[in-house]
């Protein structure tokens, strides 16, 4: 066995309570595997996700952050994900602008019925983060082990 430390990314997934969290539950009950690197935080709505949370995750050592919400038009609160969509578009564009690798952040709309999509999305995302490697450009050295 190789002693070389395998890169295990830390990935935070913000999921809205009504669609995506339920989608993740469905992925679970359907036994649709995705890597354990993904840890889900439940929020009431994608519009609850503050850009600050995303930056904070990177600061504290996350290598990727993904936000999932109801499909546009299906928001439990009717309009939340529309606001979230604009916020995240601008934030991601800004991260790209300051040279943070594209793909470290992602938004995906996952309904409560889309267990398969949840699982596929997470698999894809983890793979993407693997290809990007460790988060260096948004790291806080103090938080590195």
């Amino acid at each position, binding site marked *: 066995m190789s002693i070389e430390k395998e890169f295990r990314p830390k990935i935070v997934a913000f999921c809205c309570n009504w669609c995506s969290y339920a989608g993740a539950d469905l992925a679970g*009950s359907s036994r649709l595997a995705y890597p*354990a690197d993904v*840890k889900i935080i439940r929020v009431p709505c994608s519009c609850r996700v503050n850009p600050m*949370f995303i930056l904070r995750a990177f600061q504290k050592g996350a290598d990727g952050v993904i936000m999932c919400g109801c499909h546009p038009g*299906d928001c439990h609160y009717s*309009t*939340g994900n529309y606001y979230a969509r604009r916020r995240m578009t601008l934030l991601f564009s800004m991260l790209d602008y300051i040279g943070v690798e594209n793909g470290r952040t992602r938004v995906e709309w996952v309904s409560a019925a889309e267990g398969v999509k949840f699982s596929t999305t997470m698999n894809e995302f983890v793979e993407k983060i693997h290809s990007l490697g460790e988060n260096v450009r948004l790291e806080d050295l103090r938080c590195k082990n």
Partner: protein
Amino acid sequence: MQRIGVFVCHCGSNIAATVDVKKVVEMALLEPGVVHAEDYQYMCSEAGQAKILEAVKEKGLTGIVVCSCSPRMHEATFRKAAERAGVNPYMVEIANIREHCSWIHKDMEEATKKAVILARAAIAKVNLNAPLQPGESRVTKRALVIGGGIAGIQTAIDIADAGYEVDIVEKTPSIGGRMSQLDKTFPTLDCSACILTPKMVEASAHEKINIYTYSEVEKVTGFVGDFTVDIRKKARSVDMNKCTGCGVCQEKCPSKKAPSEFNRGLNTRSAIYTPFAQAIPNVPVIDRDACIKFKTGKCGLCEKVCQAGAIDYAQQDEIITEKYGAIVVATGFDTIKLDKYDEYAYSQSKDVITSLELERIMNAAGPTKGHLERLSDGKAPKEMVFIQCVGSRCADNRGKSYCSKICCMYTAKHAMLIRDKYPDVNVTVFYIDVRTPGKNFDEFYRRAVEEYGVNYIKGQVGKVAPLPNGKLLVQGADLIDNKQILKEADMVVLATAIEPDPSVRKIATMLTASIDTNNFLTEAHPKLRPVESPTAGVFLSGVCQGPKDIPETVAQAGAAAVKAIGLLAKDKLMTNPCTAKADELMCNGCSTCANVCPYGAITYEVKQVNDHGIREDRRIAVVNNALCQGCGACTVVCPSGAMDLQGFSNRQILAEVDAICR
């Protein structure tokens, strides 16, 4: 510091087979605040819940973390257990180590590691939880229905039949709405008045229904269960209590030049008028803009001829303030203005009419007493052309992007009725698609084509030009035979798009009910809550929510009534305690949060605050807990972070982030 108990569920082998629950317990005990941790076969069982009660008793727990299945499964169960144990139910957090962990990972070590982290995040969150209490608000057992068309009438009758007081506010002098203007209804060809009038009578006679006609909603304050509404009763100039409805005043009135709203301006009416014979209430109003008495001070004929002495020129608008628990919006529709469709010559020829105008022409009480004739010369038409989708399904911004839904069917109806009554009249219909989903709808359309010989042409009309011979030249395309069509017609009928009645904008603003870009009121959920507005306590009935025909309108009216009854049946409303809350000392009063609130739950008050010794009056956001649904949109637009969401606070979420990334 909290005293936290962590309970790790095996869920039989569902969790325990892939997660080392003992290890999770061991690791949880190292986390700050944790004073107790144990694992158990089935935490959701009675015995499992008893473990929680026991631990609370023995260790004085203030916070509880259950590592188990999804909170969507058993959060409520464990919250209740906590409550029984004397711990605030909102001091419970669930770490989902089944759906999000044991069920999707095979490797025990990996799954255990993840379960430990998920538990850690839940513990970090509970450390910052605060007890929350659901609020209570009372319910005024009275409903307001805005709009007195078939939608409003049906909703009001249904609510009233359930035993609740209902007020209908109608802006015109009579209830009845658009349906009262229709001649026949598809697909049964019932006489519209014959089926509507009994409903109108039922509403007006109902002891629980109170009708304000010639009235408008002026102001709405309050929230679900407790709205306060100002209704402006416009001066009718006729005393409702004295008038007997004999109609003499209308006969004698010398001013008969005002266009009749009811007949879509196709003929005129007197200055003192009831819109139509079966109007309810059967009490006329004086149109002060048309009345000679009001314009010149002379005349006063109606006063002289009124034996009941009901005429009251001095009458003033009256504001009535009433409290309601629920509000139903049933403001209906109007046809769009055709000024952007000049190619159809609507403004140039009297013989180009809208379908709603045709309804009036076909109606025995209409301007032509039900005879089909050209309005220009009174001659009977021989060639009639119907043009579909005028302003509907419009790609440019002249008209509406949506399908008005009812036009295909009423055009088939018109065509059939004309061919039935005047077999010598040729009827041609230009259409994009014929849409006939609905019970007996397609059969109806096929009858029009097959039995009545209506000529349907798939294609659009480019231009209608009045000819010197008085006829109309219709230039269209036949897309099936791929040829240009030139047709001389005697009358052209435009299936004009419908749009929400313009009054809805003001009402939506007053109710903080959201409207879409087409001014249709938005539903709380397009599929699952189609008759509720996102604003709690506001319900939607009829076309104000989207295009519909009569049966759909009536069905939705009933559904809206049921929702309103469900609300009125409650004495008190329990409110979700996970609501937004503004920190008074940090709030800038900038109104940004109110702009994104889908529920109109945020208002502003000028309050005196004491900011570390500085006393100032400040404009501060106040969240109405009865309205707030806890989405958190406001928290992110608040730059200072003054607005926070209880139960999902910034610090709680950040603590979870930190715990996961550690």
